[in-house]
């Protein structure tokens, strides 16, 4: 087991390193940081002075090694634009993204699981079709359009909720609905399939034969078993929401990690991009690693790979 863990950790470190090299190379290919720092009306001469002052005239590999040298000592450097350390920026933004993704998953599960259960109770009926349509709409509607519609109805017309910002928990409700709705179909379908399978099993028939109330059979016996893969899927959806909330964060002006990454990519602020990518990559690596270790613990045959 120790050998297996060491191998997996080595692979995880290699993945993190590769992500960082690719991110650095892509950013350098996509544009010039000195040009971005100097601003729109800067002359070629101004840009050259900025390039020299900020050490951007060094060969790319030396710039990368400089960053890496500091990075392995825990110093992720300073943003080329914000007057802050990258770690402080991330510390400031991460809670917003975690709140948004957490509420998004809660909304997705809160909507999709009951719909999946109802659909499984009446398979191929109009109830099933309606539940499926509601869920599939979540993936079919363009995210930014749905977000704007939510904003106009609940923020502008009804004036129930704030339109933008991240000051209070109320500010996260509309963004969480917008983000979570996209994940609804996957969770709903998995719940429905799981429930259909469980409802046809022998122990449910036995429960019916024993005369247990339907509610108890459904939620105590059937759902508890059917929901296990749904919980696993929801954790993956949570990961997706952490890395993929850029549009929602931009439309609702939530200062999160996704927004920070998008903003930093658009102006080649490589210390921030590197740090955010590493963070997101580390989230995935840890999740996958935990999954691997859990599987290996449960099934010793997997430890040989």
């Amino acid at each position, binding site marked *: 087991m120790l050998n297996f863990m060491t191998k997996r950790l080595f692979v995880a470190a290699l993945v993190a390193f590769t992500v960082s090299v690719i991110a650095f190379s892509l950013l350098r290919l996509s544009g010039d940081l000195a040009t971005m720092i100097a601003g729109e009306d800067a002359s*070629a001469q101004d840009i050259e002075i900025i390039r020299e002052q900020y050490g951007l005239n060094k060969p790319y590999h030396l710039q990368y090694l400089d960053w890496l040298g500091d990075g392995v000592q825990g110093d992720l450097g300073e943003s080329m634009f914000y007057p802050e350390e990258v770690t402080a920026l991330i510390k400031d933004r991460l809670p917003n993204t975690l709140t948004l993704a957490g509420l998004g998953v809660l909304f997705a599960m809160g909507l999709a699981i009951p719909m999946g259960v109802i659909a499984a109770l009446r398979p191929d009926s109009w109830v099933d079709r309606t539940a499926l349509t509601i869920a599939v709409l979540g993936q079919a509607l363009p995210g930014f359009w749905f977000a*704007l519609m939510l904003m106009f109805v609940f923020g502008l017309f009804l004036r129930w909720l704030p339109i933008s910002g991240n000051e209070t928990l109320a500010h996260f409700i509309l963004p969480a609905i917008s983000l979570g709705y996209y994940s609804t179909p996957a969770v709903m379908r998995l719940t429905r399939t799981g429930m259909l399978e469980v409802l046809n099993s022998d122990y449910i028939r036995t429960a019916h034969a024993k005369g247990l109330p339907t509610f108890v059979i459904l939620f105590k016996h059937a759902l508890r078993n059917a929901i296990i893969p749904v919980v696993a899927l929801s954790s993956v959806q949570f990961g997706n929401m952490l890395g993929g909330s850029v549009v929602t964060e931009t439309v609702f002006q939530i200062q999160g990690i996704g927004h920070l990454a998008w903003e930093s990519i658009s102006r080649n602020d490589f210390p921030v991009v590197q740090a955010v990518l590493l963070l997101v990559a580390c989230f995935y690596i840890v999740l996958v690693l935990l999954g691997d270790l859990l599987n290996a613990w449960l099934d010793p045959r997997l430890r040989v790979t």
Partner: protein
Amino acid sequence: MKIKHLAIPAAMAAALALSTPPAEAGKSDDTLTWISNSEPDNIDIYYNTLREGLILGRHIWDALMEIDPKTGEFQPSLAKSYKWIDDKTIEFDLREDIVFHNGEKFDADDVVFTLNYLADPNNKVKALSRTKFIAGGEKVSQYKVRAKLKYPFPAAMQYFASVIVIYPNEYYAKAGPKGMATKPVGTGPYKVTEVTYGKRFVLEKNENYMKGGPKTPSIGKLVFRRIEERGTQMAELLSGGADWIWRVPPDLAQRLDGRKGFQVTQGETMRIGFLILGASGKAGDHPMTNLKVRRAINYALDRDKIRKTLMGEASRIIHAACFPTQFGCIDDNVKRYEYNPEKAKALLKEAGFEKGFEAEFVAYRDRPIAEAIIGQLRRVGITAKMTYLKAGAYRELRRKKGVEIAFGTWGSSSINDITAIAGNWFQGSSDDNAQDKTVIDLLNQGNTTDQEVRKKVYAQAFERIADQAYWAPLFSWVYNYAYVDELDFTPSADEIPRFWAAKWK
């Protein structure tokens, strides 16, 4: 992307239909909330190059003089008067009754400190395009100071009366750049009470602002927020979450105009658009090196139609390669190219391109305008193949390899002097796609403080640029401003909204 272009106007139309007039507005609590699509990542005016940073900076700090946006004349500000000592020295007489927001007294030491700070490359100032000409400061007495320039720079006063603002030397020595980025201190009409990057900046009226100063404020509190998404900006304005937004797309501005509770104003800016025609042949041997082809392109463009359709009535046609109010922008004898596609075709025939040709066309912004231009060029037989790039990549390509046709715009950093435009585009730099020695020589002769000589040589330079059709100048850019109708606001061409001059009705 196309879906987004259709969906946002549709969503906006729905919003306008659903919304009611603003429930709460800034007048009741004397707070003006303005929203823009970018936020300066550093509120220190010298460490950001963003327009919003410049605007905030002009409210927090003061320059030595101030430009009257209506007349263009210099008014006293931190300095009572100025005089040129020689081509590289300006002397300022300072006011003696001014204090910074933190109570520190203003005098010559603050000016000397600021100018020396800007001149020192170790300080890595980012706003180089506004500060690079400064060599330092020299104290003459406690309230008299001299600014030293690195080279003769006749437009220097435009900078000293707008973007070169003065920092408190004692506070800066203690707080440093990080302190100034989080707790800025100036002498301006508004003092900063909250800096939360990514969230908002709050400015409050400076009750101790200089008596009779040119920026005496009226509104009590300014709140700045950044929202990139146009739809969200509009929703905030309609719901009372914002009082003022700008750069509103023309279609949305039209829908909002005349709506109860709101006002839409269009204001011309100093930004002009143009086609850069690769006359010097930097990008190789291509038709743009032929004068007749360049003139044909100028005749092929129906500028007025594009201007009215895609920019707005407040925009104006540009003939010389500069903005008309800039010092030295003299277009009296400049060749004017009216829209005449037949003449364009005839010129192309004379140049040996009767059947037309294909040309490279590079753009980085205002795609609809670029596409309209391409459509008009096609009508005279020129097939322009557009490459649409990010601003940085566009500039790099143009500067390093040159291009056949590039669609560009230039705001001159709001400097009302032609050195801010011709100095960059026609004085031999890597942006100069003409590299015309006659023009370079004329512009170099303009590096004098003798204003009459400057006017004469600049007029000749612009005549030559237009005659040789190095550019196809288009028109000025306009902004649409939308705000609550209880706000009395006047836009200015330098893209600096003067909130200190705004009032509640």
